[in-house]
């Protein structure tokens, strides 16, 4: 078996990603073909990395929030708010850096609000973030004044549609942020303290951990991640759409965290595994697209593939596989019954 604990942790995600990418090759043999055209990398693989950027950015913060036994339903709406903020700032004639800083601040503020509700008022995270999920799109509409706010600022557009040395900017942004946060929480003690809060907050508080501040922090990280995703999505279409930007993406982000093998009950987490989860979701999207299936099947096929992925990861199936493997040489099918008991 694999001895490195980090590799062992992300092995299932790597295998699943490999399988899904393999299926992509089956339906579209040129899937891995990447070429340089007009100074930009082109290819289906690059598309997966590029289109998966919003989900990947959201799942970084979402992983931390879920590790504290919480959940952040508001990230989709925060994307819309941040996109609208950035767009309205450049439309008003500000430099694009001002727009980005403004959008990030708004994202952080949204995170602070969620964190305040959860950590200080002790509102259940799912309810606390539902507030902003619903209200957020309204706020975004107020900012855009009900229209799709379009802009032509090249600096801002570059963040969503541009390239750096041929690599699309969104890919660089999510890779940098994701890997930085993943490294940072393990290099410092943040990761362990967050896990401790998620597993047993009472014990953690008695051990002297400042759980409230940490809780606010993870929601702020989630808000900032959502703001970056919102900027990228707005920049990509050169306009802020308050109604559709980031719609349902919070669910994709949660799904990415789950596919990443992180428990919704909090505790041990791996950001890298969640990022792989985000890429798996995007590869499934790509698979459906490339297979040429009629579009009305898309959502159902996606659901089926994801159920398959989750079933493969479920502890019961792992247990079954383990027993099958253990009993294979002796061929004692009667050894299976213990599994029956765990059905309830």
């Amino acid at each position, binding site marked *: 078996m694999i001895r490195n604990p980090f590799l062992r942790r992300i092995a299932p995600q790597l295998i699943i990603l490999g399988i899904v990418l393999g299926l992509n090759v089956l339906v579209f043999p040129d899937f891995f073909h990447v070429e340089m055209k007009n100074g930009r990398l082109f290819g289906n693989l690059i598309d997966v990395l590029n289109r998966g950027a919003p989900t990947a950015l959201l799942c970084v913060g979402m992983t931390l929030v879920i590790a504290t036994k919480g959940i952040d339903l508001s990230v989709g709406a925060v994307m819309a708010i941040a996109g609208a903020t950035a767009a309205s700032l450049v439309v008003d004639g500000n430099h694009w850096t001002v727009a980005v800083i403004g959008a990030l601040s708004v994202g952080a503020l949204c995170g602070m609000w969620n964190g305040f509700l959860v950590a200080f008022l002790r509102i259940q995270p799912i309810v606390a973030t539902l507030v902003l999920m619903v209200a957020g799109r309204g706020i975004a509409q107020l900012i855009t004044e009900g229209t799709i706010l379009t802009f032509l600022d090249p600096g801002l557009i570059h963040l969503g549609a541009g390239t750096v040395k041929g690599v699309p900017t969104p890919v660089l942004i999510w890779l940098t942020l994701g890997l930085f946060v993943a490294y940072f929480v393990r*290099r*410092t*003690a*943040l990761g*362990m*303290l967050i*896990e*401790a809060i998620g*597993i*047993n907050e*009472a*014990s*953690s*508080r*008695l*051990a*002297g*951990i*400042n759980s409230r501040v*940490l809780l606010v922090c993870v929601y702020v990280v989630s808000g900032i991640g959502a703001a970056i995703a919102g900027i990228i999505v707005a920049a990509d279409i050169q306009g802020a759409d308050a109604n559709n930007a980031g719609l349902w993406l919070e669910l994709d982000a949660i799904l990415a965290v789950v596919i990443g093998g992180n428990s919704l009950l909090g*505790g*041990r987490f791996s950001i890298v595994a969640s990022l792989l989860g985000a890429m798996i979701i995007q590869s499934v999207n790509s698979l459906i697209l490339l297979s040429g299936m009629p579009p009305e099947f898309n959502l159902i096929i996606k659901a089926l593939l994801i159920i398959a992925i989750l079933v493969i990861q479920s502890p019961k199936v792992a247990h079954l596989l383990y027993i099958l493997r253990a009993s294979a040489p002796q061929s004692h099918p009667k050894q299976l019954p213990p599994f029956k008991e765990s059905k309830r």
Partner: protein
Amino acid sequence: MTDERRPMLQAKGISKFFPGTVALDNVELTLHAGEIHALLGENGAGKSTLIKCLTGVYRRDGGMVVLDGTEVDPTSTHHSQTLGIGTVYQEVNLLPNLTVAENLYLGRQPMRGPFVDRRRMNAHARETLRDYGIRIDPAQPLATYSVAIQQVVAIARAVEMSGKVLILDEPTASLDHDEVQLLFSVIRRLKDRGLAVVFITHFLDQVFDICDCATVLRNGQVVGRLDLATASRNDVISLMLGRQLAAQVRAPKPETAGKPLLQIEGLQKTGMLGSFNLDLHEGEVIGLAGLLGSGRTEAANLIFGAVKADQGKLRLRGKDIQVRNPRDAVAHGFALCPEDRKTDGIVGELSVRDNIVLALQARQGWMRKVPRKKVDAIAEHYVRTLDIRLANLDMPIRLLSGGNQQKALLARWLATDPDFLILDEPTRGIDIGAHAEIIALIGRLQQDGMALLVASSEMEELVAYASRVIVLRDRNQVKELTGDEITSENIIRAIAADPRMEVAE
């Protein structure tokens, strides 16, 4: 209460095992009709487990239950109710938004065709409740009435459905004096009707008020049966708290206390602890004695800031300090091993290594991670010196046994090098070997000049290591014992002393 009478319920040799522990060991319980029987014991003695075995929440692993002459084996609470055993818990198990009558008849409403016959149901309910001495409008929602009335409704429901044995699990915990009297009058009526009543409570006064006899449990075993007409409070308390360590040698205690460390003045919180004062010196072990609910744990939590006090002054080495939360306390060099290891102590899924370093890391802040090498050194040091038995440091702490978890928690706090260590029930629920080791450790820490405050329900243990013992009763500091005064007899006397008599003195 003659022995010739056939018992209403007789439990013989009841045993119940949980992974790693024996919760009930060959327990006998005999209930007669028209008798109120107290079931006594500290937390974890096995009272609830016994009740759960009788009412079918748990299946017993051994023994038999004879109810009214026939052997029974309840498989669920519903089954035990139909057999005739009804239970009422401390937290009223009814539906507050339904009416009183609906609560009484839920699941067996009088019907007229497909509809509930409300008029008949309300009339029945009014009549039934009148038999219990309360006159209320049964068509009103249950929530409009006080907890005591709700308790009576719960009792009425249990009695109407079962009718042979009634088990009351701390029914008076949230009632005031008058309400308790109301409840007692109801219980006495039931006694006259010939029910066998089991009464569980931590209030000894109430036991002597209403009960005829008592069975005392400790560590899953029956340690005594008493006829309360002849027994004294001292008898009951010494049975409950036990004297397992009677043969142990006293740890050597330094005669002169060290420099003053911490002064606590008037620490109090309404409903938790009356004014608490303590002068603590280096190298002292202060024992906190008292029955369950006397304020032991509350005192520990208030000092550590786990619960915020209403008032009180703390002075550390002559300087006033503020302890608003555990973080402040840790910063001042305090440490607390809580009573409930599982919910307040361990972080179950984290590794033993992370658990040991947690408090030190929390004090250092998240920015300065304790280097891996140092973590390993600390963890290995304590695994060796405290003899923590484990497969490896990476295993989740929840897989360790109770005693080893407790040692790992001690290691967590010793790693912060505290000046003042609070231990709340450090030896509860751990095996004998670990028990002795922890007591020895307390002695060692004291010699090193650490100040300790140990809350414990095991008096003999306190006698063995405490340089002073503070006795708490009814959430008040009632007595301080020093030097040769520290004997279990004196502690029992201080705990048992009747408050009214003391006023007379």
